[in-house]
């Protein structure tokens, strides 16, 4: 277990863009590849490989706080990439406005 730090976690408070329903595995992976390596590695170690923060910190040789911030940032970037993808499909505010016009 880790001690929480407001500075580390500050940027995670923002709401998530919704996860588009029709994202395929391939699109998910494509979005993941666009997340910078440092962030992607932490997301993969923790979300896929299920290492603990402490273990991931040991593997990457970085402080736990860095793991926490990279994880939050990586997940957020991934959500943003997927939201962009959803918009490109016409899913989102622009599309809805267009439909009602």
């Amino acid at each position: 277990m880790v001690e929480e730090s407001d500075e580390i976690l500050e940027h995670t408070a923002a709401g998530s863009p919704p996860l588009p329903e029709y994202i395929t595995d391939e699109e998910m992976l494509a979005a993941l590849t666009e997340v910078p390596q440092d962030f992607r590695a932490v997301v993969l170690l923790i979300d896929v490989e299920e290492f603990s923060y402490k273990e991931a910190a040991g593997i990457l040789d970085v402080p736990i706080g860095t793991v926490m911030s990279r994880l939050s940032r990586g997940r957020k970037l991934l959500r943003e990439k997927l939201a962009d993808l959803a918009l490109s499909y016409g899913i989102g505010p622009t599309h809805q406005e267009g439909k009602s016009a």
Partner: protein
Amino acid sequence: MNRIQFGEGACEKTRKYLDSYISNELLVETNHEVLRHVENCAACAAEAEARMQLRARVKTAVNAQTVPPELQVRIREQIRGSRSKSWFVSGWGRWAVAMAASLIVCAGVWFNYSREKLPALTDRPAQNAYIQRVSATLAAVLKVGLGDHIHCSVFRKYPKNPPPVEKMEADLGPSYKGLLPVVSAAVPDGYRIVMAHQCSYAGRKFVHMTLEKNGEILSLVIAHKNPGESLEGPSPAVEPSGIPIYQSAAQHYQVAGFDAGNFLAYIVSDLRGKTNLQIAANLAPRVREYLMKTPA
């Protein structure tokens, strides 16, 4: 211990901790505060649900990739072994282990996304664009072999059941049918010729054989030289029997080529570079000998 008391601005505080909450990394007391808030706040509950869905979808998508299981096991064991040695990793820096960790879980991702989706069989313009993109980094003389391999063996596929030898001989024509036994004798065990014919791509004629082994394909592509065209240069990758062979990679394709009198010959595959080169080195002496006797 660092217990967080939620009160004013509870939603904002909750969301700061949601990622650690999802990863089950919060202290018990903080976890309880987050849970209590989420149970009573529809917006934060929806936010937590969205983040958990994303986490689950990432895991599903990555695990669906076809990374060879034995490779996954080996690297995961190395990673986990490093933990049991108090983070001391003999021979590897920790960073190397970390990179290996991200490599293994990303291997499928990178493997697949280094490969563009193939255009539809009927979409010729898209096929040409694909070939141009894939081969963009290659020397012009190597593009010749790669283009026909993709055009013929990748886009049009090879037959699951190879035609009889007589049919392949007829499709190759009298000048080239003798290549069938030459190639069969020089490729590694397990490869079989599944297609052999003369074809044309981008206004150029080719003699083309496709070989297959457990779903892996490779092509022998032969073209008449255009005036002034040659593969020979200062730095061959290998030189079996004095035949300089040049190889280059374009995305996941490997293209090896050598001069054979009036012809250019290529071995193209998506095998590992070393394997492709070895096969080219095995084939080159016999194929070259045959082509040197073949009238242009």
